[in-house]
């Protein structure tokens, strides 16, 4: 139970930590705002879990999926807005949405298995250690990305952020096909022999840029198009603003 909760907490915290670090390196937010966002995120995650029984029966028992799709789209839009305008509100919305999307899975696990005292102890220790390892990874990632920003400028970071945000839209597409909202297409390629998503490196790559070993054509097209859209918006919109000013 300890190892399961450790691995689970790591898996759910990783996408949150990566987005947080990416946004922080693009434009730094003060510690108070960061902490505020984290606390609100945890709060909203709990609220999401508590209201899940109410949301779930909506839209013919697809209410939760619709909510999750909405969160994914919100993350994409707020990350894009933050990349262009560096507005604190966009930062907060992105962080709170990503926390609600991922931490809710872990909170359901905690609440579901909190019954016995023995389980509670392992869960607590596992969560604590998972948080520690994730923090360690985050600090190292932060310094690595800061060094890259110092050396190569903002472009590589915007590329990473674009891919990371595009990956959220692919998650939305997967959820939509899960509830038969859209039709999916067949798998384009199978890279499971080279790198499975179930391995640790695969999971990190999935959390960072949305790596998929068995993507379908719709996901692939939307990933490429939304990344290009993201980067184009980051490049052209600030230019048009400076042109207007001059």
């Amino acid at each position: 139970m300890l190892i399961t909760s450790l691995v689970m907490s790591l898996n759910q915290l990783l996408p949150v930590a990566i987005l947080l670090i990416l946004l922080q390196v693009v434009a730094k937010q003060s510690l108070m705002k960061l902490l505020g966002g984290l606390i609100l995120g945890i709060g909203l995650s709990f609220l999401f879990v508590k209201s899940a029984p109410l949301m779930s029966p909506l839209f013919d028992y697809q209410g939760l999926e619709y909510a999750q799709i909405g969160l994914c789209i919100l993350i994409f839009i707020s990350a894009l807005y933050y990349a262009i305008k560096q507005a604190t509100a966009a930062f907060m919305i992105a962080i709170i949405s990503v926390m609600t999307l991922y931490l809710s899975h872990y909170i359901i696990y905690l609440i579901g298995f909190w019954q016995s005292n023995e389980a509670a102890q392992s869960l607590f220790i596992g969560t604590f250690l998972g948080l520690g390892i994730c923090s360690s990874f985050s600090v190292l990632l932060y310094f690595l990305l800061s060094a890259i920003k110092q050396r190569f400028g903002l472009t590589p970071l915007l590329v990473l952020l674009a891919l990371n945000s595009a990956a959220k839209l692919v998650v939305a597409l997967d959820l939509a096909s899960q509830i038969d909202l859209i039709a999916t297409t067949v798998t384009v390629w199978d890279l499971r022999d080279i790198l499975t998503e179930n391995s640790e490196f695969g999971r990190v790559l999935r959390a960072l840029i949305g790596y998929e070993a068995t993507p379908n054509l719709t996901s692939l097209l939307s990933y490429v198009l939304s990344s290009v859209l993201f980067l184009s918006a980051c490049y052209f919109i600030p230019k048009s603003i400076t042109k207007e000013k001059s």
Partner: protein
Amino acid sequence: MIKQLIRPYLYCCVFLSFNAASKDYRIVLKDHLFYPAEIVVPANKKVRLLIENQDSTPEEFDSFDLNREKVLYPKRKSVIYIGPLIPGRYEFFGEFSPNTARGAVIVTEKERSNANN
């Protein structure tokens, strides 16, 4: 509003998708184990998985190969659509009990009578 947002993708999908009618395939989760552990479904068709969680604790149906993730609430049935899939083996597991709750969807070309309608 959400349906309007994904309309551009639908145009793409219409040319490329297989919109065959889907049949129900049942999986039961009991004592943190999936029954059947391996389920056979036809290739290139949309398939409807009906998963029943007979445990008193929640479980999360997770599959990287199928790109599906859904929380299975206790004593509840959940529906997940998969496919169209090319023949092969697609593994899934319960994220809350990854050592016990494991299974696979086997996709074959032949039409098998595994559907429960």
